[in-house]
């Protein structure tokens, strides 16, 4: 059972590492992200934060304008809060 659980954990981690090429360690898990280029120099990041069991604890998008300023965040999980524009934008 423990071996089966470890295998599942390994599978989930491999999937996350393949899907989101960038990662950093967090105190209680990991943060993964994938950068996507948009039009007119804009870009976005998909960010997935997981706990030590590789379970998703947070998933959101960050939108950056052509000068690299964060202009919008879309929190998807654990609650879908829709798009939130940053102050001053």
């Amino acid at each position: 059972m423990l071996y089966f659980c470890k295998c599942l954990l390994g599978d989930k981690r491999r999937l996350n590492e393949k899907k989101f090429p960038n990662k950093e360690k967090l105190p209680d898990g990991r943060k993964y992200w994938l950068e996507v280029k948009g039009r007119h120099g804009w870009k976005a990041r998909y960010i997935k934060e997981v706990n030590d069991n590789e379970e998703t604890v947070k998933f959101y998008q960050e939108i950056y304008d052509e000068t690299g300023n964060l202009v919008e965040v879309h929190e998807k999980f654990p609650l879908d809060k829709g798009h939130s524009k940053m102050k001053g934008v």
Partner: protein
Amino acid sequence: MTLTKTMLADMLMKYINRDIDLPNLVDWAEKMMMEAYFEDSSFELIRDILARIGLADVREFGLTWDDCYDYLHKLGYDIKIALVKA
């Protein structure tokens, strides 16, 4: 679940044929990005197309007809348009 090229193409066709609207397509793509497995042989292709679809509700990303045509072509399909009486 494992998302295949065919399943992704089907969802794009549903959008083109107005069987689903943009918010629902975007929502589906975001959920797939979060947790789904992708067909191993086309992993990066599926991921990259899906990632763009999940941002289609942001103006500077969007989803144009040309985008749909391009994505479907990369997924192995070409589109043929026919007129149907309303």
